[in-house]
């Protein structure tokens, strides 16, 4: 179970430059420092206000653009418990799984408002909106992906099992 946490709502096509701008990614290598600039272009005070356990809720094509793994990393570092979006860009999706940040596809994003309190059950495949008293079905993750997420990402998986998941 993930959450309960507050929904931080964003629109469609949130690209990786908006999640963490290239100018920071290419000048700051310390994750504490880098995370201060997460989502800055869209919401300047996001990193100060977000709390551990909160969710990012967004429209379609979340994470489009570059392959920077710093994008899911800064969100995870700030304590985001999952990104819930209508759809994801593919590299972001793979990166998030590989670093252990849950990514959840949900068609009912429009019913969630900024500030709603959410709870997510990935295994059973639902998002509960505690503020509105509603439950939304989500696409359950393929088992291979759940396995990597449950271990906390690919590095932790390899450390534990001594092999890659596909070996």
């Amino acid at each position, binding site marked *: 179970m993930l959450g309960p946490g507050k929904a931080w709502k964003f629109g469609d*096509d949130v*690209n990786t*430059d*908006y999640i963490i*701008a*290239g*100018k920071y*990614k*290419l*000048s*700051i*290598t*310390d994750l504490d420092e880098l995370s201060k600039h997460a989502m800055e*272009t869209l919401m300047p005070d996001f990193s100060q206000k977000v709390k551990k356990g909160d969710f990012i809720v967004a429209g*379609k*094509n979340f994470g*489009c*653009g*570059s*392959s*920077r*793994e*710093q994008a899911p*990393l800064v969100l995870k570092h700030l304590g985001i418990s999952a990104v819930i979006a209508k*759809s994801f*860009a*593919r*590299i972001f999706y*793979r*990166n998030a799984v*590989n*670093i252990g940040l849950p990514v959840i596809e949900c068609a009912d994003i429009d019913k969630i408002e900024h500030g709603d309190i959410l709870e997510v059950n990935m295994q059973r495949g639902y998002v509960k909106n505690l503020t509105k008293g509603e439950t939304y079905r989500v696409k359950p993750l393929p088992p*291979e992906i759940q396995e990597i997420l449950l271990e906390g*990402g*690919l*590095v932790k998986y*390899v*450390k534990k099992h001594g092999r*890659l*998941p*596909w*070996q």
Partner: protein
Amino acid sequence: MGKTISEKILSHASGKDAYAGDIVVAKIDAAMMHDGMAQLVINAFKEMGGKTLWDPDRVAIVIDHVAPSAYEAFSKVHKMMRMFAFKHGAKFYEVGSGVCHQLMIESGLVHPGSVIVGSDSHTCTYGALGAFATGIGSTEMAAVLLSGRLWFKVPETIEVLIEGNLPPMVFPKDVILKIIGTIKADGATYKAIEFKGSTVKSMNVEGRLTLTNMAVEMGAKTGIMEPDEKTRAFLKALGCREIKGFTSDEDVDYSESIKFDVSDLEPQVSCPHAVDNVKSVKEVEGREVNQVFIGSCTNGRLYDLRIAAKIMKGKHAKKGVRVIVIPASRKVYREAVKEGLIDIFLDFGCAICNPGCGPCAGAHQGILAPGERCISTSNRNFKARMGSPEAEIYLASPATAAASAVMGEITDPRRFLKEE
């Protein structure tokens, strides 16, 4: 049922009879990483217990994003990369060699039918040579360095059929911008785009690379093309011997087929702050520009520099406009010197920077101030990509960028037709 190029390549690389939707574990022919991601890759590789690279000759490590380093933090990353590359015997490209994708193409590591991964989203560029190439993240890259293998979901393929002769002053960049404006930023997510048709056939390889480079701007996993005589001649000149590759079968089931007739296409421009916000140059003509950038993995090749030089020849940049020209690689730079293009740029008043990503990556060499406008031949115009969030980036062909540099405002290059 027939197979697409991507299905054939991934079947070949995985030893499985694979179709779209199947998950395969494919053998990787080459892997590339650059300084924007290297620290994460190297750390993950070490954490996973990596001792040796699966095949050092197939691993390219490139310093191009902040090259030369502009910050101490990145000097440390570069130092770490050198140590890693030398220790493991990987191919290493020092500051000044060029943009990673151009270097990969020139290296001969990319050939038709190969599977290539890079820790950069524009790795899809190599599809113009008939390779299956895609961008991956840093942790996955570490896994590839360890094992030489990676899982892929075999993508469905969208057929993009481009027909017609390009009108004067209309270039491959205009074609791909038009396509992105139609398919949109997420129109090809998870899919491969196969570029076909008479227009593609008549383009040189450099122009084709501009098309595949921007496939990811539609969310595609890769952009790909059938290798032909031009591809083979291009690769032979690089000393590459594996030049056969695959073609799609006649009876392939494309997930979608989209046709473009480019015989009346006008010069295109992608407007702030999204790549798919595409208009014809005419619609935005006259907007003042402060910076012009000609370069990047999209349009920094000799063909592109020639186009820009033709317009700039004998002229000078408009007062108040700074023009940054960056050849995509040292090889391109040297040829541009030999052909006299660099002289033309110098006379025009350009700042010519060392081969690398330059302002495209947003770290240095052309950061925009609030309220400024840049016209660039690169591939992304997201807000704050090149500096201030209050600056604007327009993406265009080298011809449109050069014409705009002459006039100091966004300019349709067809005004310079006489000189073509």
